C-alpha cells in the first residue's frame, strides 16, 4: 500500500462522516504521523472560496455547503419522503390494471382507498385521471403518467413483470427479508 497523504485521509473522513467529527477522532485515524489540527487548517484553506467548505464547530469539524452557494441548490436538492404502503399498493394496482376505477382498486385491495391516498399520488405526478368508465355513476378511471415510468426507470408499462414472473422471481415471499 502506497503512502496516502494525511490530508486526503481527513478529506475522505469528513466527507463520509456526514455529521461533524471530533478532532480527537480525526487525530486517532492519522496516528502519530501528522497533527490533525495542522492538516485540518490546511484543508480549510484549500476549500476556501469553493462550493463546499470545511467548518469548525467547537471541537468538531465538518464539510458543509458554502452558504453563498446553498440558495442555488434548493431547486435540485429537495428532501425526500417515502410513499406509505397503502399509497404504494394503490399505485401498483393502477400501474398494472389501468385504466382502473377507485372501486376496482378497492376490490383488489380489499379495503377502501382513502381520497387522501389518491390525492397524494396525483401530487407525486405519477398518477392522473383518465376519462370516465361507461358504467353506472360514470366513475373516473386512473392511469399512470410518463413521470411514473421515469421515476421507476421503466421504458414502458410492458416492462412490468407479470404476476407469474413476479412469483418466479420470488417477489411473493418475504420481500426484503434478506
Amino acid at each position, binding site marked *: 500500500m502506497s503512502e496516502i497523504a494525511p490530508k486526503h485521509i481527513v478529506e475522505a473522513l469528513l466527507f*463520509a462522516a456526514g455529521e461533524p467529527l471530533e478532532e480527537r477522532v480525526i487525530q486517532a485515524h492519522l496516528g502519530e504521523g501528522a497533527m490533525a489540527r495542522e492538516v485540518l487548517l490546511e484543508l480549510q484553506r484549500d476549500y476556501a472560496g469553493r462550493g463546499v467548505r470545511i467548518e469548525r464547530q467547537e471541537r468538531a469539524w465538518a464539510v458543509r455547503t458554502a452558504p453563498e452557494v446553498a440558495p442555488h441548490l434548493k431547486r435540485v436538492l429537495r*428532501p425526500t419522503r417515502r*410513499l406509505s404502503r397503502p399509497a*404504494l399498493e394503490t399505485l401498483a394496482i393502477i400501474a398494472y390494471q389501468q385504466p382502473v376505477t377507485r372501486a376496482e382498486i378497492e376490490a383488489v385491495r380489499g379495503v377502501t382507498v382513502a381520497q387522501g391516498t389518491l390525492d397524494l399520488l396525483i401530487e407525486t405526478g405519477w398518477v392522473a385521471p383518465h376519462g370516465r368508465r361507461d358504467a353506472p355513476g360514470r366513475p373516473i378511471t386512473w392511469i399512470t403518467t410518463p413521470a411514473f415510468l421515469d421515476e421507476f426507470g421503466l421504458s414502458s408499462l410492458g416492462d412490468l413483470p407479470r404476476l407469474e414472473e*413476479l*412469483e418466479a422471481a420470488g417477489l411473493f415471499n418475504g420481500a*426484503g427479508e434478506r
Partner: protein
Amino acid sequence: MSLAADFVVDLEVFEGPLDLLLDLARGQKIDLRQVSVLALADQYLAYLQDARERRIEVAAEYLVMAAWLAYLKSQLLLPPAERDEPDAEAVAAELGARLRRLEAIRRAAAWLEERPRLGVARLVREVPEPADVDVEPRYVARLHDLLAAYGRAARRRQPGQITLPSRRLMTVDTAMDRLSRLLTGHDWRDLAGFVPNGLEDGVERRAALAASLLASLELARTGVLDLQQAAPFGPIMVRRKT
C-alpha cells in the same frame, strides 16, 4: 481447486450437471478449448456410478446428462458413416463452448466481487445535509417496493390460489417405486404412459421420462419386468415378468 480430483463423491457441492462437468474438465488441467469430451464423458459416468454405489441419491437431471453423454460418446467412437448423429463432433464442440462460457461467467463474477464496492471501498456521504423546511419534499419509491406491493395485493385477492412453482425433478428411486406399483397385469404397456400427468413443463416431463427409463432398465436387470423396443425411437414397451 478441483473437488473431482479427489474423487470424493459429493453431489451437494455441485450446482447441476454442467457445474460437475466443468469441475471435471478443470481436473484435466488443460486448455478448456482442448478438453476431451470423450475423457470427460468417461469421468462423468464413473463419477455418477461411484455415487450410486455409495447409495447417494442422484437427481434426475444428472442422469439425463449421463444418458446424453453416453450416447454422444457412442457416436464419437463410431466411424462417421455408421452414426445416427453425423455431427457428433459439432455437438461435442458445442458442449465445450458451453463449459467455456460458464467458466468465463464464473471469472466475471469473481472479478465483480473484487471491485471497490460502495460502502466498503468507496464511501458515500452518510447523511444528506438538512434541507430547508420551506422546500416541498419529493416523493420517492423503489421499483422493488412497487412490485412487491402488487404481489402482496394480488396474493390477498386470491387466497390459496397461488402455488409456488416447484421444479422437483423425478428421481430414479421415485420412478422405480411408481413403476413397480402401477405396472400390473401382464400385457405390454408404453413406458411413456407411466409419466405422471400434469407435468406441463418440458424439463420436468423429460426428466420424468428419463428417470422412468432408467428405472425400467434397473427393474429389467433385477428380473421384475421385460422391456421391448421394436425400432429406434419407437415406443418403449414394458410388462411385468410372468
